[in-house]
Structures are given as structure tokens and as C-alpha cells.
């Protein structure tokens, strides 16, 4: 199981355009990252805030619903955040060659 997870993560990191991945726990503390420390901390902190707000918004509308995935597309890149109660997975991908 763990090796499959490792493989999947490696594949993701090796996909075309992917800048880096960050896995944080529920408090926004990075567990595993392919970026350097500063960038990791920055992404983790900022995206944590955003996901909490987004989650609150979704649940306010319907408390039985929950946020599962968040995608931020900007001019240069796309930030994708996969959410669960216990962790966050952040992937940054460049869109153009």
C-alpha cells in the first residue's frame, strides 16, 4: 500500500508541468514536500487559510456537503488542492511550456 502511494506521488511529481507537491496534515504543517522549505511553508500556510474559508462556505450552504477538491487557475499556473479531514494535498502545475 505504501509503495503504491509512493509510486503514485512520484508519478504525479513527474508529470509534465508539475512544479511541486506538498502534503500537509490537518493543521497545515507540511508532512512531505518536493519544494524547498520556504516555498513549502508559504504554500501550506496560504492554502490552508483558503481551504478553510472555502470549506466553511460550502458547508454553510449545505451542512451535509463537504469540500473535496479546490482548483485555482491563474495566468501562469494551476494550484490544485485535494482535501480530506485529516490532510491536504497541494499540487502546483505550470500550464504552458
Amino acid at each position: 500500500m505504501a509503495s503504491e502511494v509512493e509510486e503514485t506521488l512520484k508519478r504525479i511529481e513527474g508529470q509534465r508541468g508539475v512544479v511541486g507537491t506538498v502534503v500537509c496534515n490537518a493543521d497545515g504543517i507540511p508532512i512531505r514536500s518536493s519544494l524547498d522549505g520556504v516555498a513549502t511553508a508559504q504554500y501550506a500556510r496560504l492554502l490552508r487559510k483558503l481551504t478553510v474559508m472555502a470549506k466553511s462556505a460550502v458547508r454553510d450552504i449545505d451542512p451535509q456537503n463537504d469540500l473535496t477538491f479546490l482548483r485555482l487557475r491563474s495566468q501562469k499556473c494551476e494550484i490544485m488542492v485535494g482535501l480530506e479531514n485529516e490532510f491536504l494535498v497541494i499540487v502546483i502545475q505550470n500550464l504552458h511550456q
Partner: protein
Amino acid sequence: MTTPGAKLKKRTLMVTHSSRALNGSISGLHQVNHSSRHTGSNVSRKGLSMAGDSRSTIQTPRQTVRVLNENGTDVTPQPISHPEPGAKHNRVYLDEFSGPSDILSMLYQPTTAASLTVPFSRSVFCSSKISRSSLSTIESVNEERVDTFYKQDNYPASYVQVEREEVKEQVTEDMLNEVVNIYLTETETITHLDMPGISVSVDADDAEAIKERNNRYAELCKNRMGNDKYMDRSMQAFIGASKSKQVQCDSIVMVDTACEATTWDMYDSFYGAEQDKTELTAEPEKSGYSESIVNSSRGPEKTTSLLSTTSIATSASSSQREIETGMCSDDAADPRLILQSEKFQKVLLVMERCILANIFQPKLAAYRQLPIVEDCDSVVTPETMEHREEDVERSLSPTLESLWVFSCELTKGRTISCMAWNKKNPDLLAVGYGEFDFRDQTPGLVCCWSLKNPTWPERVYHCNTGVTSLDFSAKHPYRLAVGMTDGTIAIYYVYSQDKTCAVSSSKCSKKHYSSTWQVKWAEQDMGLSGDDKEEALMSISADGRISKWFLHDDLDCVELMRLKRMQEEKDEMETEVKDKKKKGEILRSLNAGFCFDFHPVDSSIYLAGSIDGTIYKCSSSNSQQFLETYSQHFGPVTRIKWCPFNPNVFLSCSLDWTIKLWIQDQLTPLLCLTSTQKQVHDIMWSPKWATVFGAINEGQMKIWNLDYSTLDPVIVHMAAPGVKMTSLLFALQTDCVLVGDNSGQVTVYQIKNFTVGEGNQVDTLESIISSAVARL
């Protein structure tokens, strides 16, 4: 001795007599006495004679006080206990001492032999006779017997001491050994202050009288001014000297708190406890970590979430607060557990697909026939502009455009032998990898690819030997049947991540002992009526048998047909006349079967192609005889396909370079198509148009349109140099074609600029066929 009544009345006087030395403070005492007397109930103090009489005086009942209530009844409280006459010692009942005032008043009561025992050993006197054990400091004493010993010089201290000790001793010996019953009862209601209201209900009896009085008083007030009856007069009241006093209190600390209740917060608080229970019961095997997460995130005390909502609401959130927000704040979560949890895998799966969707978006959009939206943010360089112009200028002849390739490291170098779509999920493709060469015994591979991830298969199954054929079941879409080069048939259940096959035929005694060349799920009539259809797995193999497999606990088969060689039968018929018959049956080898196909409408009829070029039409109800035999091919028939639009028409291709179009009843083919002198490995009808089909030679992929031409294919696509194409599959809902080759890649092509007439061309096919028939 004065009378008891007089005694009491003169109590105060007697006090003054006896204690002249304390005159100064007597007034205070008076007041004390008065105050002690001015309670609701009365004190039955026993008047104590002043003279130093013997104790007998003390013994006499001292009901000097009589209390009468409004109605004149005697409500004098009775004493609790009556001492036996002649008792030497007087006990002091101290339960209702109310402090110094009482003590002092008792001190100064005239008594002959009164010495005051120290009234602080209260706990000692808990004899069973005491019914009031309340040690309240209520001033009023309802009933008490106060036999006080006034400390005088007559009594030496030692005496008192002895007495006290004796009393004490009594307690210690007897009291500790026996069971003490303490009765707790309520006292009567003691009213300290009674202020009856001055308003009277209108319905009361004397309301009238009161109203009358009120009116008279009102009139009086009115008439007061200038009335001689009433005269103003001043009075002076005592005004106490005032004194200002300052008080300072501790500074009051003010703290701002705020709270916001969001909808989900309230929902969680209400239903969090319930969900907690259901989650815990539903997943008892989940690791303790995740359970604790659930608990803490859904506990009824939501102080952290309150803080969190505050920080969300107020945008000025400090980084400290951030940490406590929203999701559960279980810091002890093991990172490794997170990484190994199932949820993590799922999220990664979705994430991977999202990333790939970004990368392959234009291709997938083309596949799904969606308009490709240009990326407005992409940097437009002069080179890209040139490319675009070139694209526009390209020829408008029908071509195949390569969209993407399914391949990964696992599949490199393997030959693709077969491909199949899932019947339920049109995005799921199963690809079998196995060598055609019987001598090449490399283990085979089955990969289930999803359109959403062209870089890695969803499922990978390693097989012992090469895979030759695949088919998904229609009734149970998760069942994948795999035929292999050693003759085994395996069924995989693809819904689970389990890598092992569910069922295998290797243990079956009647299994194929030579390569299984094709497997197919087909519905068969089981019962007498036509409605009872069950799906069964059919297989054809190189040992010449067609078997029908049943899946119970294990695979078990029933032989449907044996492919007997027709030539030998003919010979036998000739020689039968002779007496060779008597020599017994000659064992003859069976014709190796290569491919088969079931009739789209009547699934009991099927066609089987064999290695010597014969096509047999059989029925599953008749396992002895063939319905028809078509022997026009000169080489092994590699593929037979019924036309999905016309139930009488079928196509066959063989290694003799030809593709033949047949009608069911005709033993000679209607059309024979050859374009190049290469072996044809695979053909397939287009699911969209009745006149279109595709074929694969070794190095080329051809799309034929019978309407367009029966001599040449419409599209010819060359394979990359060195690569041989081996397998063909049309996409079901779009106009795309998948081609597998011997380098382990499945390429998805889109058919472009392919114009066919309107509709699905069934009529066109009919007309072609009829004209072809006419020519014969």
C-alpha cells in the same frame, strides 16, 4: 423567692442588683436582652433565683413566661426535656447559643449555683434526647433548657473541671459504642420580617371599606388646604452626622469576545454526536488515530470551532488563531498514517487525473467531440502561429489524427493481442499483452486503462502466460474474462484493487489443453422460453473445442462443439461403404479454432473460424453437426465479425491477405477485398456506419467504406517504421479508433474529414449487397 412571673419581670432589675460593677455596660446588656427578646417567638428562659440557693431551686419548672397569640390561646413553647428531680448535674444544651449575646445574658442571670461551662464543646453533647441538632446561629431559642453554672467562688474550679470531665467521659464510653440516631426535623417557620402588602384585591371582602377609607383620605387631602381643622407644624428629625467614605475596588478587566455560529457549526453540534456513533460502529477496524480525529472534530464542545469561526469572520486573524481553525486540531496525528490511509490514495488518484486532464485536455476534448477552447493565457509566439496556419492548410482528405497513446513502462516491448471496452463504463479499456508466437512464453499482462489517465493503468494483472483474448461481461460489468496461451481461462473482478484473479480454469479437468484463442461472454437461452437468458462464457481454442463455461464457485465447462475436419469426414463417407467401418473409429484430429462470433440477434447461432480456413456456422443447441460450412479461405481465419446493422452479413479476414464479405446462406463470399499482400490480423465493423469497417495488416491500418469503393480503402495509415500493428478497436460513441501494436502502445486515432452519407447507411449496405448478389 419571688414568683416566677415576677422574676422574669424583674429580670433586668435583678441583673442590676447583682452586677453593680458592670453598670456601665448594663444598658448595653439591656439592649442585648431586649434584642434577644424581640424575636418572633419567646424564650423560655428559666428565671434563676439570685440567692445562693441550692440547686433544687433550679430544678423547679420555670414556666415564668406565657405567650399568648392574637386569639388568646396559649402558645407558650414547651421545653424539650424535663430533668429528673434530684439530678445532680445540669447539662447545658448548647445547640442554640447564638454567640456572645446569649452567653452574656446568661452570665448575668441571677442564679445561685450557676457556673457556665465552656459552651464550645458542642459536639460533645449529642445525646439522643436532643432533637434539635441544628447548630445554626439563629438568635431565637425556641426551647432550651439552660442550666447554667455560674462561676462563683463557692465552686472551686476543680469541681467544674471534674464535672466536665465526667460528662465527657460519659460520652466517650457510652456514646461511641451505641448507635446514635439523629432525627432531623424542620423548625417552625421563623419570620424575621413580615411586610404585608398594602394593596388589596378588588375582590377581597373588605375592599369596600378600604375604598371608602381611601376616598375619605383623598377628600381630606383636598380639603386640607385652608381648612381650619388642620394646621401645619414643623418637626425636627434627628439627622445623623454623615461621613464620607471612599472605597476602591480592583480594576475591572474587560475582555472582548465574539462568537459566530455558522450553519455547519450548528449542524455539527446537533448531529455530530449521532454521526460519531454511527461512524464508530460502521468502521470498527479503522485505526484509533482516525477515530480520535472523528471524535475531536465532532465533539459537542466546540470551543475551538467557536474560536475558529471568529477568526474566519474577522479578517484580522493572527497566525496563532489560524492553527485552531476549522478541521480537527489533533496534533498527535501520525504523518505516516496519513500517507498510508485509503483517503490519501483516493485524493492522489483524483489529483493525478486532474493534472492529466490539464495536460491532455485538448486531446480528450477532441475525443469526446467537444469544441477545443483555446487557452487565452498561453503565450502566442510566432512559431505557434505558423503551426496553426499550417494546420488549417492541411489537406482535407480523410486522415487519422493521433490523439494520445496508452503506454507505460510496464508495457514497453510487449505485443498487444486484444483490446476490449467495458460494457458499462465506456471510458474503461482492457488491453491484453501477449505474444502471438507460441514459442515465446513470456508472461502476459492485462491492463485496465482509463481514458482519464493515459500514463498509468488503473489495474494491472500479471498472468503466467501470454494473453490472447479479453472480454468484459455485459451482465456483470466488473467481470473480465481472459484467455491465455496455455489454455487457461481466468476471470478477474476489476472493481477491487486485488491483484489476483477471482477464478481460474486451471483446475478444471475439461479445460483447454492448447491456446485459448478467443473468449466471449454471450447470452444463452437456458430455459424453454426465450426470456430466460443467462450469460455464459464461451471459448474457442486451438485444441478444436468450443466450450461453454459456467461460473459457480469455480469454472466448469460444457463442450459445445468440436471442430471436426470436414475433409476427413468426406473421406470417411467414401470409405464407409467399404468394410473399414468394422475396423472402428479412426481417431481424427480436430481443427484448431481461431476465432468465433455470436450472432447479434439470435445468440444461439455462432460462426467459428479455424486454422485451415474453414468457417463453421453452428448452433449451440446442436453439438454434433454444423449448420453450414464456408470454406473459401486458404489460410487461417483470424477474425470473423457479424455486421451489427445487418444480421445476415458477416466479414471474415485471414492470413491469406483477404477480407471476405459473406451472406449467411451463401457459401461463396459476396465480396473479396484485398489491398496489399499482407496478412490481415484484425477487422472490425464500425459501430456507427454500416458500410465502414477497419482492418489491420501488419504495417498498416485501413479503413474501408464499401459505399466509396470496394477496391481500395478510404484511409490507409502507415505504422511507424519497425512497428507492427496487431489489434484494432473502434470507439463506441465517437469516431475514434484504437490501434495496438507490438511495441506495447495503444494509439488513439481520430478519424478526420471522413464523410459518409446520412444515417447509419444500412440501406446503402443493402443495396450494395443486393447488387453484389445480382452479379453472382
